[in-house]
């Protein structure tokens, strides 16, 4: 089901959490709300879920105005950063909760819960309590619980934020696959641009309660609308008014008229990628990202003077 947010505003005391925000999420898509903390992304998600009431504007879910509808009637599945597991219930009862509330027949509940536990790889854990699960398992349980009642929309609030880096990577691949299987319209909140690019089809970049840009991952990276998006979705050097991605900075041994002298300070080997940190004649520090091959060809060393120029740069007004 599609979601449409129109001119939504929300304040907490003096703090403006959402400032006239409008966004559309097409049916069946996987959208990320990306932004730094305090940018309003979680508030927007909670407004869509009905957990927060906007001060102005409206929320439409599959064409119907849902602004005044309480959370319980919106048919959304919500996954919280800290799982919000029902601690006094077993994994099975947690997942069955939404179905029991809807008074579905017992054998239907059992069948559906088994199916979902299979889907989230927790079949062997049905009779455990949340306290006996790892963080990753708890979050998978929370996902199964949210999916149980077949929601129109799945909303995830920093779902992997509380997990280890390795579990996080595994789960996001898994979420991507799950979305391919289940095809429910999904919105997830993250502050990690890599995660957003890895998982989402559409990214909404937020800052200070406003939307900075909406687009596909490569669009945001290659055609950022402004300085904020440019620096938030990837690494960037600022040289005067110009913004240059480190991999767009070319280094060479001979000057060619368009190059500047650069003095190499430090070389960091990160496997395939090599980071070259240097100082420009203007006194500005910057870095370039080159392949191992290039670094070896140029025989780069700290203290050396080489020549460089931005191959591609952007200026915003």
């Amino acid at each position, binding site marked *: 089901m599609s979601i449409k947010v129109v001119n939504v505003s929300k304040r907490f005391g003096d703090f403006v959490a959402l400032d006239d925000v409008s966004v559309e999420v097409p049916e069946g898509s996987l959208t990320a709300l990306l932004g730094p903390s305090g940018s309003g992304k979680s508030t927007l998600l909670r407004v869509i879920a009905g*957990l927060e009431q906007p001060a102005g504007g409206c929320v439409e879910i599959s064409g119907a105005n849902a602004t005044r509808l*309480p959370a*319980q009637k919106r048919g959304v599945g919500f996954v919280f950063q800290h799982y919000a597991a029902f601690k006094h219930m077993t994994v099975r009862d947690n997942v069955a909760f939404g179905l029991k*509330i809807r008074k579905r027949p017992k054998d239907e509940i059992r069948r559906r819960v088994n199916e979902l536990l299979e889907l989230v790889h927790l079949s062997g854990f049905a009779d455990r309590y949340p306290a006996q699960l790892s963080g990753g398992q708890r979050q998978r349980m929370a996902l199964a619980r949210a999916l149980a009642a077949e929601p129109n929309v799945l909303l995830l609030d920093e779902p992997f934020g509380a997990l280890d880096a390795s579990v996080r990577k595994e789960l996001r691949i898994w979420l991507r696959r799950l979305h391919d299987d289940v095809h429910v319209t999904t919105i997830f909140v993250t502050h990690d641009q890599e995660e957003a690019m890895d998982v989402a089809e559409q990214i909404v970049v937020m800052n200070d309660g406003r939307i900075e840009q909406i687009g596909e991952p490569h669009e945001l990276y290659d055609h950022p609308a402004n300085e904020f998006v440019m620096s938030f979705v990837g690494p960037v050097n600022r040289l005067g008014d110009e913004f240059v991605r480190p991999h767009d900075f070319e280094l060479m041994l001979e000057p060619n008229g368009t190059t500047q002298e650069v003095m190499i300070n430090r070389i960091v080997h990160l496997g395939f990628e090599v980071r070259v940190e240097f100082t420009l004649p203007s006194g500005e520090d910057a870095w370039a990202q080159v392949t191992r091959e290039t670094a070896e060809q140029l025989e780069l060393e700290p203290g050396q003077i080489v020549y460089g120029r931005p191959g591609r740069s952007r200026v915003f007004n």
Partner: protein
Amino acid sequence: MTARRLAPRVIALSYLGLLLAAPVGLVFFRTFEHGFGPAWDAVTTPEAQHAFWMTILMVVVAVPVNTVFGIVCALVLARHQFRGKALMNAAVDLPFAVSPVVIGLALILVYGQGGWFGGWLTAHGIQVIFSTPGMILATIFVSLPFVVREVVPVLREIGTEQEQAASTLGASSWQTFWRVTLPAIRWGVGYGVVLATARALGEFGAVSVVSGKIQGRTETMTLFVEQRFHQFDLTGAYAASVVLALLAVATLLTMNLLGSRTEGR
């Protein structure tokens, strides 16, 4: 074992021993000094039995009332923001701060003859003071804070995320309360109930003032103990005390038993 580690233990144990265990132990000893028979006879007189059932009545009415309203008050204090919340918070502690005797007198001022509601109540044939309703009111008053005070911190600790999750899963606030909130706070509620029960069983001052101490009519177990004591029936006083102590112990054991059963699922 070094002296440094032993010292606090000795201090703690002798403190508890001298101030708690010895007096209570002595009551038990005195009760059964002349065998089981006299003690049994003392607590099975019609008067003693009446006092026993009065005490049970106090507990059976006051504790459920304070449990239900205690949970409501705790939810309001932990989950709502409003003007006058600090005042409400302080009001809940009033029974801790105010002497039970004062509470008793206050009740007489409100419900007694010439009190605020006294005239109206008398006109409608309801007697509150020097009668059971007044004693129940006094017991409710003194045992009010326990459930609230035990439940508020538990509610704060569990937060609201589980409740929000329940609402996104389609639960109404009523369903959320029964299926999510109440099970999550059950230990706090249980402990509050135990403390409120103990307080209601042992209440003396406020009940003493409003009851009028009419033998066989408005006498609870604690009042009965005092009355026996003043009439130099020490066996009766001790035996009734033992009954009170046993009731309290039974309350604690019931709670522990319920606790271990639900925990061991």
